């Protein structure tokens, strides 16, 4: 079978070339490799043609436009045409394969925020005590975009807070005369490493406790990234007003994040128990409760650990 001879990246390209050429007969079977054995000769030669001479096939179509260009030199014409066809193919390849490694469409959901959402969410992060309803609203089985529901997790605030944390750490180190540019990279890398470690530890414990939850990895990253907001607040207040204020503000933010995480994770991890509203007794629920408490308790610890060396 010819697909065995081609690389995996070549197979989607091979599917695309025949669909461009065969305009009249639209065969849905062209996308199915099992049906390609009916047409091996034409598809194979076209497939090999598409792979072996990409510049050659792209060159005749692309050279039509630069011929009217001001560069009359045929060598530079050819070079420009080849370069543009290579760039187009590279872009095509990246676009096809990027979805395998980074789920771009899923990420777009997490950045669908607006100013009001950010304002309300920041208020919630600093003062979660009066908020009553923590459920995420659903719209036909998919969660509503963060723009419309303040309970939905987003990645905008954690990303911005992380970057701001790195900058504020640089600022704090500068006030102590300990700054050098590579320390910024070190701070960023260190915070990222702690975040990765946290995510891996929580994923491992979720697997061990066999929780059937709809908490995806990106959701988890979003929730764990909310603590950077409190950290920034604490460090800035500490820089402005001194160490006592730093401890006070950090303590307040720690308690807030603790309550926030418990109330949010309770709905995700302890789904059945929270739906009834009463604490159900049982080994499984107890284990899940411990897990939620452990995750929530790790947040203040990390908030302190990552900031105490910045305010002296």
């Amino acid at each position, binding site marked *: 079978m010819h697909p065995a001879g081609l690389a995996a990246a070549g197979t989607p390209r091979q599917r695309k070339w025949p669909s461009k050429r065969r305009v009249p007969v639209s065969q849905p079977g062209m996308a199915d490799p099992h049906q390609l054995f009916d047409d091996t000769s034409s598809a194979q030669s076209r497939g090999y043609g598409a792979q072996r001479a990409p510049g050659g096939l792209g060159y005749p179509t692309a050279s039509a436009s630069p011929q009217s260009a001001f560069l009359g030199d045929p060598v530079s014409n050819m070079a420009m045409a080849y370069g543009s066809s290579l760039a187009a193919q590279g872009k095509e390849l990246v676009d096809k394969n990027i979805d395998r490694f980074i789920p771009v469409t899923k990420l777009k959901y997490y950045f669908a925020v607006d100013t009001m959402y950010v304002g309300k969410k920041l208020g919630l992060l600093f003062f979660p005590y009066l908020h009553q309803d923590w459920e995420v609203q659903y719209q036909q089985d998919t969660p509503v975009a963060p723009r419309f529901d303040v309970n939905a997790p987003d990645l905008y605030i954690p990303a911005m807070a992380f970057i701001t944390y790195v900058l504020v750490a640089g600022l704090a180190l500068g006030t102590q005369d300990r700054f050098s540019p590579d320390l910024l990279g070190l701070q960023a890398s*260190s915070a990222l490493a702690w975040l990765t470690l946290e995510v891996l530890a929580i994923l491992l414990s979720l697997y061990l*406790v066999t929780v059937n939850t709809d908490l995806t990895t990106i959701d988890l990253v979003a929730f764990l990234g909310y603590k950077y907001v409190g950290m920034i607040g604490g460090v800035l207040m500490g820089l402005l007003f001194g160490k006592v204020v730093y401890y006070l503000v950090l303590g307040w933010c720690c308690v807030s994040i603790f309550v926030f995480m418990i109330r949010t994770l309770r709905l995700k991890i302890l789904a059945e128990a929270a739906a009834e509203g009463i604490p159900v007794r049982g080994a499984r629920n107890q*284990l899940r409760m411990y897990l939620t408490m452990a995750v929530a308790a790790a947040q203040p610890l990390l908030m302190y650990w990552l900031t105490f060396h910045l305010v002296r």
Partner: protein
Amino acid sequence: MAFTLYSLLQAALLCVNAIAVLHEERFLKNIGWGTDQGIGGFEEEPGIKSQLMNLIRSVRTVMRVPLIIVNSIAIILLLLFG
């Protein structure tokens, strides 16, 4: 506080190596964590011990060949760059 991503990678590699060297017959069977000793529990939810045993078994099976490659790369890099 030089906890970088690189040290996380090193720690991960060492942990996976540690899981891979657990000997099936000499060690895991003796502490009751062998692969044939835990598959009986199909009636309810698995429980932590059988999840752990499953995890160890799957890590050992999946990571056997990639670990050879990654370990060789790590050895060569450490020899060259210290």
